[in-house]
């Protein structure tokens, strides 16, 4: 069968592979090369050595964006996962209205980042006006809290679904055996449910970490980086370097930042996956 299939590769692999080259491989390699160049358009690029990288690593705005993103990601990952797990535990107790609650909590996930950002901008600004505080785009800490709340609102439902699926896949025998042995509800949670939930926890932390680092739409719509780039996250900072400034050097800087950003996301995904995989128990 393998032999017959191999002959048919133009039908099976070629369309996807050709599109993959156009949509991923070629732009990726070109981007990698251009990060060492000074350019406005791709045709007219001059080799620049490591200058772009040196600039990127010493630019205060970029470093600030890095720390802002890191802090945001850690805080939002913790909030999202704790809340999602708590709701999932509550929803697997077979109480009334479970289905309605599940649908409602999941709903924000279907709404896109730009729309979400504007919805919450209107809401936060109204709250802040009523409290007599400065608006969202004038005070960076509010922007940070706003982003965390927005992210929680969007992601909790998604993670909740994954946790519910994880909880439902724990064999009933385990829980029954624990109860017969006289375990309290708390002991069951810590000693039976959580260890068996490790695969779901891996996936959810992984997803919320990478989502946090790659966040762009919500950031652009909610604060747009105001005030004075103080709430700018990495992705938005790169975008602004590319398209928000005039001058021949900026595109090269932006591309170098993008490569650094890409390496960062890859490293995080890799470490995170290894760290939690080793804690999983076998069923």
């Amino acid at each position, binding site marked *: 069968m393998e032999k017959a299939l191999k002959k048919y590769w133009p039908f099976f692999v070629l369309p996807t592979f050709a599109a993959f080259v156009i949509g*991923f491989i070629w732009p990726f390699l070109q981007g990698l090369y*251009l990060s060492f160049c000074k350019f406005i358009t*791709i045709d007219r690029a001059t080799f620049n050595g490591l200058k772009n990288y040196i600039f990127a690593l010493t630019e205060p705005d970029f470093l600030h964006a890095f720390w802002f993103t890191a802090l945001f990601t850690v805080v939002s990952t913790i909030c999202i996962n704790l809340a999602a797990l708590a709701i999932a535990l509550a929803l697997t107790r077979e*109480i009334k209205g479970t289905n309605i609650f599940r649908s409602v909590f999941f709903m924000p996930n279907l709404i896109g980042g*730009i729309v979400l950002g504007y919805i919450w901008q*209107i809401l936060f600004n109204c709250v802040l006006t009523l409290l007599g505080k400065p608006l969202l785009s004038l005070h960076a800490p509010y922007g940070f809290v706003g982003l965390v709340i927005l992210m929680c609102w969007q992601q909790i439902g998604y993670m909740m679904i*994954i946790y519910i699926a994880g909880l439902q896949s724990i064999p009933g025998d385990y829980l029954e055996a624990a109860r017969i042995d006289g375990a309290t509800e708390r002991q069951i949670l810590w000693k039976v449910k959580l260890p068996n939930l490790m695969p779901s926890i891996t*996936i959810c932390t992984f997803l919320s970490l990478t989502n946090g680092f790659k966040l*762009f739409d919500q950031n652009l719509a909610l604060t747009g980086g105001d005030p004075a780039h103080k709430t700018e996250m990495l992705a938005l900072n790169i975008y602004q370097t590319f398209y928000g400034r005039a001058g021949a050097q900026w*595109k090269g800087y932006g591309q170098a930042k993008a490569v650094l950003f890409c390496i960062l996301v890859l490293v995080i995904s890799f470490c995170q996956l290894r760290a939690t995989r080793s804690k999983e128990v076998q069923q």
Partner: protein
Amino acid sequence: MNQNKTLKDNITSIILGVLSIAWIYPVFMILFNSLKKETAISTGTAFQLPTSETLAGLANYVNALTSKGFLTAFWYSLVITLTSVVLILICCSMCAWFITRVNTWYSKALYYLFVFSMVVPFQMLMFTLSATADRLKLSSPYTICIIYLGFGAGLAVFMFCGFMKSIPIEIEEAAMIDGCSPLRTFFMVVLPILKPTLISVGILETMWLWNDYLLPYLVLDRTKGYMTIPILIQYFRGSFGKVEMGPMMASIMMNIIPIIIVYLLCQKHIIKGVAAGAVKG
């Protein structure tokens, strides 16, 4: 003991009930603000329900539909989402079948390339990708699906591969021995078995495509007036001059309403699809 448990359950129900009302409140807030008159919308009064004086009826919706280009944006969004999802489902499932059934170094290399592409952030490619799309004349809503096929292939191939490993190879071998060509085997035997995964992947890709902002914003040729709904909504804010909040909120509602209708209709599939996608991911 039993009574204690029902009491506890009732308290959990009430807490969750309050929480879920808070959860949908933002959407309702936009809904009733979109019914207000332009002059009545300000940052401090967003929580007030429209009164008989400030109620504008559907004027904002009519305005957004007729003079703000919502209909064209909706049409382009629809075209892009549908063509891309169909293309991704067909091409990526074929590719994934080849990768799982042909065991050579290049099929493995291809698989890891696809997995790698899932993690790479879009900012890495955005400039070069939009330049490539421009040069290859792929910057119209009818051809952007090729870009999406390339950029979105990672997740789809990954999920299809994960599922295909669990399909017994004997069924396919039997079909081939009976004289089916690989193409026929794929469409008559493999694709029907794959139906649940097709639905899951389709839903995940649709959620992403319908809401995607940056890729179409950079790739589509805006001088020809191509825009999707997220781009239109961003335009309300980003363009110079006074922001027209009324039509903007009407557009937001018209972006959300189709999503919610689809969600209510096939909720079961969507939730299953998300769970399946995550377990494979």
